[in-house]
């Protein structure tokens, strides 16, 4: 009996510490006053001002477009690379895998500065393109790492069976291998998407005039104090992600019941 209460309390504490900061942020996005020191009543004005703020809106647009594009491209490249790596001989495979892990372990700041120097050296003007290329670069290893385990689980004979039954290699790839490793691909995509969404260090060094993402914009407000508009924006983003999760969960549980 006591154990049960302790368990509940433990779970409560974990969720409390995880979500308390977000709750505070959401509550203060409705605060009339700009200061967190005083509560002057409920308001929606920060939400209205948020959509009028050109800078935040453009930062949101760049954040989302870079996140979508870079995670899609990285997923495509990463999946193809993973399939290739999986079919390699042992020595080559471990060598390539080590090379893949390196950018993951490498501190962001090194990657960021290295990419910046590379772009400047190649005389590519820093801007949207360089930001996108940088994000694709740091996303690829994560996709490879999440797709590879699925490939290991995959029964090699399925592919051979498909070929035996007359499928061309590319047809077998599309109809047999890809559907089998789909959960890994989706995990990789989501991972890449989130990483791209909140990257600051690499973006800071690789972006140029006129292009800046949300983390850079929010950070640049540090000297004058974070504007409550940012609270409003974070609230919207949090609720969107929450809704997405609920929808996905719902669909998954529905699918499961149908199968049963």
């Amino acid at each position, binding site marked *: 009996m006591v154990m049960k209460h302790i368990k509940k309390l433990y779970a409560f504490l974990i969720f409390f510490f995880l979500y308390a900061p977000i709750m505070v942020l959401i509550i203060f996005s409705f605060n009339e*006053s700009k200061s967190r*020191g005083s509560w002057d009543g409920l308001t929606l004005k920060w939400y209205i001002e948020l959509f009028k703020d*050109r800078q935040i809106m453009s930062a949101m*647009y760049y954040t989302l477009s870079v996140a979508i594009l870079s995670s899609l491209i990285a997923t495509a490249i990463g999946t193809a690379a993973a399939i290739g790596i999986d079919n390699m001989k042992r020595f080559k495979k471990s060598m390539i895998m080590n090379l893949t892990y390196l950018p993951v372990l490498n501190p962001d700041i090194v990657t960021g500065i290295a990419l910046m120097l590379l772009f*400047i050296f190649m005389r590519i003007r*820093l801007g949207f393109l360089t930001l996108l290329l940088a994000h694709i670069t740091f996303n690829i290893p994560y996709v490879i790492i999440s797709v590879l385990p699925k490939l290991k689980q995959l029964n090699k004979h399925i592919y051979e069976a498909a070929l035996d039954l007359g499928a061309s290699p590319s047809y077998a790839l599309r109809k047999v291998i890809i559907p089998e490793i789909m959960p890994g691909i989706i995990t990789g995509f989501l991972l890449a998407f989130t990483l791209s969404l909140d990257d600051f260090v690499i973006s800071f060094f690789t972006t140029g005039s006129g292009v800046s993402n949300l983390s850079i*914009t929010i950070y640049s*407000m540090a*000297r004058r104090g974070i504007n409550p508009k940012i609270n409003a924006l974070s609230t919207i983003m949090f609720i969107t992600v929450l809704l997405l999760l609920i929808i996905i969960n719902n669909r998954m549980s529905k699918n499961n019941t149908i199968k049963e």
Partner: protein
Amino acid sequence: MTKVFKTTLALLLVASIILAMTGCSEGKPTLKVYNWGDYIDESVLVEFEEEYGIRVIYDTYATNEDMYIKIKAGGSDYDVAFPSDYMIERMIKEDLLHEIDFNNIPNFKYISEEFKNLDYDSSNNYSVPYMWGTVGIIYNTTMVDDTVDSWDILWNEKYANQILMLDSQRDSIGITLKKLGYSLNTRDVNELEAVKDELIKQKPLVLAYVGDDVKDKMISEEAAMAVVWSGDAVYMKWQNPNLEYAIPKEGSNLWFDAMVIPKTSKNKENAELFINFMTSTDIAFKNTDYIGYSTPHVEARKLLDDELINDKTAYPSSEDLANCEVFKDLSDFLTEYDRVWTEVKAR
């Protein structure tokens, strides 16, 4: 599978369309402005675009050093930036700034004479002041009953654990240098050692070394006094009428943010057009009104609320400023400041 594929394709298409759209607007002349975060009334940018048909691309940074890296490294092409005093000096030294053609900035006449030809740009060829302010002590009149007119009060044991210091090495070391009667820009190691001892002595009394959160802490009366920038002090006093601001008699730091044209600029004339526009009376007034810092613009200042014009916090008298100094670029000697500050913080 096909569903996922289709949505993916649709997203890609949408994204590429948006991309193409951003490409289109390249036809208009553009001006790239690099400013501190939340440091302009953004409607001003729209006004500029409408008046001159130039598209403004606006980016922001958090510290002088962030901005410096971006401009120094190349690869960016900003036309106007807003560095602070010591950073302007450094950028002039490193040949990163264009000389401004002041024939194109007729509105420069509105800038108060006392803010021209300052140390960081002694013949005023490179910069047009944007905002200025001081560093001082904000204190809660209900919690502090001594007169606050000296940095010594921050070392008064009566207020143990009620003092907030800035977590900023130049500012904290600077005010201690001033307390001891030295220059803010000292290059004397012995003076710095004396500062170190003072700061270590003060450390048990300090509640916290804070950054921007000082505003919320003082407004909610979590501490009795704090070292702050004057611009923030105006805002805090407005939020909590018990607060008062003082510039200690030993003198303090006087700071400026000014508009400059980096060498990365590709259309210097448009940059000058923008600087002149920013220095026109109504625009300078709008920005001052939004930001709440002190303007060096004589006419814009007259348009402010009487209350603010007469507020010694935002516009101190010249006697108050008599002992104040502007930060200079310390270049290599800065490592000594780093060391002292690290040693203080590590204690």
